[in-house]
């Protein structure tokens, strides 16, 4: 027994037992091994980068290509069917890329809004006690999310193109809105100078609402009296501008679409490509959001409902103050990745000819200039930046609603 003790004391003093050659001794040391492993990783990574770098240089030289972004200043000489800013085929490739980027952002923003609205509605309906509506929404969700989004896009595009009538036989609502296979035509607002008053009234309404909300909150803390914040807000933000709009004599002139010889003229048009992409992305993503919302609401334990009822709160107040804030904590992180997915899926636009950033810069510009490396790098960088911005915003929002723990 004493010999064992003395042996342990000895080995403690001398560190780990010295056996074998120096290499295996280093290998058996945990820290040394991790340092070696990391150095090997760095060396391997740089060797790999150097290898593909030299290959790229050699290949470019062999094809007689240079690596430069000069092509961005050259006229693009192709047309884009939807441009939010001025664009002609004489504009530069950089301008074409910007038009494409704006188209991507447009469909992404519209898609996120519609998908969120539909997703929340479907998610709540999925929890409904009404058996029939519950089943209908369930079937819809399962069919939507188990079919590739590209098929949704192609299917809706096909429906718009093949099933809606030619402009001459357009389906019209009150002769103002026209549904045709060339797109949806809606009246175009022409703002006159007096419309400024409505805008000002709207801004005043928002400021007034914020001030009232703060005051009401403070009064409630002090006296316990609850003010109708929602109705006051509605009156200030919606009611006031509408009132001003009517008083100033409705200063918007609507330019309605008119049937020309071959096509409808005037008004605003939503091209079929945009429509198909927007609807398909929104429906597809809303199915996922619905499941997220459902899971979020179910994650709030039933005791919270009961506790709130015991305090005598109304159902709407319970939802607003107790259930939704807690459910949001579960909902927001997966919701963020759905928004990111929708934005990335908008690149499928190329399949139906909606000119987004991939179709302009990564498609036609690439083909015309032969600058595969530069254009693809720019497209990848742009998507990385968009993803980063969305996740930064959603992380900020997530921090704001997070449970504050001591």
């Amino acid at each position, binding site marked *: 027994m004493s010999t064992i003790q003395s042996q342990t004391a000895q080995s403690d003093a001398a560190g780990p037992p010295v056996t074998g050659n120096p290499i295996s001794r280093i290998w058996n040391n945990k820290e040394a091994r991790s340092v070696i492993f*990391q150095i090997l990783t760095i060396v391997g990574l740089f060797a790999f980068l150097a290898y593909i770098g030299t290959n*790229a240089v050699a290949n470019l030289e062999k094809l007689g290509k240079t690596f430069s972004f000069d092509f961005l200043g050259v006229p693009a000489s192709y047309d884009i069917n939807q441009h939010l800013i001025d664009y002609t085929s004489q504009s530069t490739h950089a301008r074409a890329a910007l038009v494409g980027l704006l188209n991507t952002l447009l469909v992404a923003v519209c898609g996120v809004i519609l998908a969120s609205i539909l997703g929340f509605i479907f998610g709540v309906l999925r929890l409904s006690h009404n058996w*029939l*509506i519950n089943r*209908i929404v369930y079937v819809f969700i399962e069919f939507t999310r*188990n079919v590739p989004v*590209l098929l949704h896009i192609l299917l809706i595009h096909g429906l718009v193109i093949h099933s809606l009538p030619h402009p001459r036989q357009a389906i019209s609502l009150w002769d103002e809105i026209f549904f045709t296979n060339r797109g949806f035509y809606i009246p175009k607002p022409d703002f006159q100078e007096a419309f400024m008053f409505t805008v000002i009234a709207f801004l005043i309404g928002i400021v007034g609402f914020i001030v009232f909300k703060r005051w009401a909150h403070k009064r409630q803390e002090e006296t316990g009296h609850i003010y109708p914040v929602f109705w006051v807000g509605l009156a200030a933000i919606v009611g006031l501008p509408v009132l001003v709009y009517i008083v100033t004599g409705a200063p918007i002139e609507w330019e309605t679409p008119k049937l020309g010889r071959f096509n409808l003229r005037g008004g605003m048009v939503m091209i079929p490509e945009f429509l198909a992409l927007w609807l398909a992305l929104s429906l597809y993503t809303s199915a996922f959001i619905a499941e997220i919302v459902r899971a979020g609401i179910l994650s709030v334990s039933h005791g919270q409902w009961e506790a709130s009822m015991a305090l005598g709160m109304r159902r709407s107040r319970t939802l607003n103050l107790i259930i939704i804030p807690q459910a949001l904590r579960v909902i927001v992180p997966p919701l963020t990745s759905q928004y990111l997915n929708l934005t990335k899926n908008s690149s499928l636009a190329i399949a139906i000819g909606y000119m987004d950033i*991939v179709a302009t810069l990564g498609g036609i510009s690439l083909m015309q200039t032969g600058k*595969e490396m530069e254009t*693809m790098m720019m497209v990848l960088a742009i998507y990385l930046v968009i993803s980063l911005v969305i996740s930064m915003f959603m992380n900020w929002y997530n921090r704001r609603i997070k449970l504050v723990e001591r």
Partner: protein
Amino acid sequence: MASETTTQKYEPGTHPDMEPPVLTSGPVYWLKENLFGSITSTILTLLSIYLLYLIIPPLFDWAVLDATLNASSRSECQQAGDGACWAFIKDRYLLLIYGFYPIEERWRVDVSFILLLVAIAAVLWDAMPARRHFIKFTIAFPFVAAYLLLGGEWFGIPTGLEQVTTDQFGGIMLTVVIGITGISFSLPIGIVLALGRVGNLPVVRIVCVMFIEFIRGVPLITLLFVASTMLNYFLPPGTQFDLLLRVLIMVTLFASAYMAEVIRGGLQAIPKGQYEAADSMGLKYWQAMRLIILPQALKISIPGIVNTFIGLYKDTTLVVVIGLLDPLGIAKSSLADNRWQGLSNEMYIFIALFFFVCCFSMSRYSLYLEKKLHTGHKR
């Protein structure tokens, strides 16, 4: 009267059978409870019935009653009826399944598919007889399938099968090839990436984080474009690299980044005590991972893993954009045919049904697996 009945005394055995209380069971009660419970519920029910009335009868007319099964062109279909023209699908279904795989060699696709079913059964069906031997077959299956589908010479040794190049792959067969390859390789790569990301080697962690975040930040389509236009630049000059192989690599890397994040979630949900317990047992890193941590982490991540698989399977359709002939590619070329132009609805609905069946069964299996593996306390 009511109090009279409650205080009534009966001799033992003479108690009369009473009617059940009104409206706590039966179809009328069910209707009242589930469809007309309140005013909102009633309104919702009526609205849904109206919606179903608007959708179902016309759809049924279109797809079944007015549909045409035998015709040789769209105009013949239109003469026969104004419903769906399923004759188009009937004309093209072989192409949709096999793509342009040579007709006399199609038995090889069939055989590989049957072997695939055996290989999958060994993984999914845990009561399979002689499962341990079949698992060995599952591991060997990718090579067997590659041998069967490609044929030709391997490293100069003739295989006895005629060579089929990958540009002849197409249709549902191509979808399955890409899907199965991506699924079987993305899981191990994803596990390694996740371990690298949560591990304590800073350099490895940074490399893993950068890789994962880069892949997750860009759409798959751009990666496929990179594969089809840019990847050749990074290889030694003059190297010719098969397009399908490039796509397979990209799809696998794409799915493994998502897989890594799912598995990282599982790893982080494991309490620290499990790591410490493994350390105190004297287990080495890989032993601890293999025996203690990963079995628990993977079990937690099953829903996420299956969701990634489903996403990957659906994403195989994107290869049509770079010109591979998956079912959508076949659909596109079929729709360009003069005889069948304009029948996109029939074609896309058919393909959508195929994907629905595959993906829905995957998600059902994942639910079953979750229930089966749920060994913890159920609340």
